[in-house]
């Protein structure tokens, strides 16, 4: 096992990883930017190295500085957390060039996961359902019309360089399509410097369902059930739960098996997530591989009792998975609310600033992963996620009540946070009944 690990991240996830290392008797090296000098992850680690100015590009994304910090401190492995360099195949490559173990999938699997059109082609060959659409870029409105007719309207047109919901247009019929095609292509050129677009079937009432997998370096895989992540705003997840109210044992098994097939096809090892869209008729379609630990991993940990960060470290150190699929069980219901420094009354505008007062929820079935403390200054340089509130209940109803109770205990003063927003969603009758899809927040906000 490793004696020392460097954590190439910040905030709550850096703390989360440091905690696992402490439990495993592994020494830790934190890295930090100028803005994060007073951060908890710096104080909690055994050693800390300043890697540069506040802008991510000059610190947390600076591969050379991070590799150098690992070499200088004698860290044998680097855990990248999520975001930043976690899905960079060139960073994984740089680690191995310097005899440092990257705690994540192999470089080639990262590259494959990152190349969406290539991954799609491989998976079609394997018979994994993907959203029907153009396999390649579409260059003319005529070509678009042919594809749309084949997959059936409505269709969605996406900029190949887009993402996060930008550069997308929906066409409900052939007349729409001609209009939307030229607009979308023009927009893609202006916004992303590349007019390439592709087209796919628009899924009505889609749910975002993802499967957590673990794979060791010897081809052994397990799936740890699903996470329901349909509560999103601008493609950013806000609430996640496990299990999902719409997945039964049969569908879980099918999707789990498909997820492992995807992982095996790209040569994946370590922890990963396979994202699917589920339509109103419970057909699932592969979306993408998230080749890292996810923000919402705690809901899976709570229902399976498996510590994902422990497993990531053990896998990276060359250990075999200590369990097989038949040992994996799910108990109870877990829900996570993301606590962001954002103003829900002002279209979720970022809200950096000083935390003047803070009371964190506690008590039975409550887990809080956060790096904030009283008088901590939330800086504008990084993501607005300042904490995660996760609860476990015997069933969904109990988990909802527990989350309502925990939210009522959560008090932050000095900056605006998403706590009151979550409290309202957790009271919503559609949410309570489990009738949710990725348009939930839009409808919820319109109804207000």
């Amino acid at each position, binding site marked *: 096992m490793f004696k020392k690990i460097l954590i190439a991240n910040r905030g709550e996830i850096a703390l989360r990883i440091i905690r696992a290392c402490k439990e495993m008797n592994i020494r830790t090296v934190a890295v930090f930017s100028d803005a994060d000098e007073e951060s908890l992850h710096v104080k909690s680690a055994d050693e800390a190295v300043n890697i540069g100015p506040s802008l991510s590009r000059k610190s947390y994304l600076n591969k050379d500085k991070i590799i150098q910090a690992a070499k200088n401190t004698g860290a044998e492995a680097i855990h990248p957390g999520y975001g930043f360099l976690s899905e960079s195949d060139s960073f994984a490559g740089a680690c191995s060039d310097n005899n440092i173990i990257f705690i994540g999938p192999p470089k080639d699997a990262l590259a494959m996961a990152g190349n969406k059109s290539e991954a799609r082609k491989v998976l079609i060959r394997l018979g994994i359902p993907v959203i029907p659409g153009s396999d390649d870029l579409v260059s003319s409105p005529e070509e678009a019309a042919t594809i749309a007719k084949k997959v059936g309207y409505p269709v969605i047109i996406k900029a190949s360089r887009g993402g996060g919901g930008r550069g997308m247009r929906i066409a409900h019929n052939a007349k729409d399509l001609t209009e939307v095609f030229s607009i979308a292509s023009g927009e893609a050129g202006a916004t992303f410097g590349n007019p390439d677009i592709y087209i796919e079937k628009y899924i009505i009432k889609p749910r975002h369902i993802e499967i957590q997998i673990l794979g060791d370096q010897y081809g052994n895989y397990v799936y740890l059930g699903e996470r329901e992540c349909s509560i999103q705003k601008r493609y950013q997840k806000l609430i996640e739960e496990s299990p999902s109210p719409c997945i039964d044992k049969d569908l879980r098994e099918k999707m789990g098996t498909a997820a492992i097939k995807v992982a095996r096809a790209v040569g994946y090892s370590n922890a990963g997530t396979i994202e699917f869209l589920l339509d109103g008729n419970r057909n699932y379609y592969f979306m993408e591989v998230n080749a890292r630990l996810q923000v919402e991993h705690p809901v899976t940990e709570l229902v399976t009792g498996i510590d994902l960060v422990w497993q990531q470290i053990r896998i990276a150190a060359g250990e075999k998975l200590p369990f097989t699929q038949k040992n994996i069980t799910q108990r109870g219901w877990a829900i996570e609310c993301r606590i962001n420094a954002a103003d829900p009354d002002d279209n979720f505008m*970022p809200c*950096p*600033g000083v935390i003047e007062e803070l009371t964190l929820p506690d008590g039975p079935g409550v887990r809080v992963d956060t790096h904030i403390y009283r008088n901590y200054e939330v800086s*504008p340089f990084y993501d607005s996620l300042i904490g995660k509130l996760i609860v476990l209940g015997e069933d969904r109803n109990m988990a909802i009540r527990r989350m309502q109770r925990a939210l009522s205990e959560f008090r932050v003063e000095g900056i605006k946070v998403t706590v009151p927003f979550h409290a309202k969603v957790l009271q919503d009758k559609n949410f309570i009944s489990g009738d949710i899809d990725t348009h939930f927040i839009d409808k919820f906000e319109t109804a207000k």
Partner: protein
Amino acid sequence: MDAKTYMITSPLMGTFYRSPSPEASPCVEVGQKVNTSDVVCVIESMKIFTELRAAQAGTVKRILVENEGLVMKNQELIEIEIG
């Protein structure tokens, strides 16, 4: 100093960028003419990018902040001479 001017101020705390991406050239330079709703700079806060636009046509008179500088809410950024 008789000409009328107005200030572009930051709507929130964040990083001031003179261009929309590190490779791109600055949105505006001192002395440059701008039209109403031209983008004059970008503020990044918590990975959200907000484009700030000219409220009225005019000429850029002064740029008060260095590129990539940290700015506070309501801080004055760019002065524009109307006309």
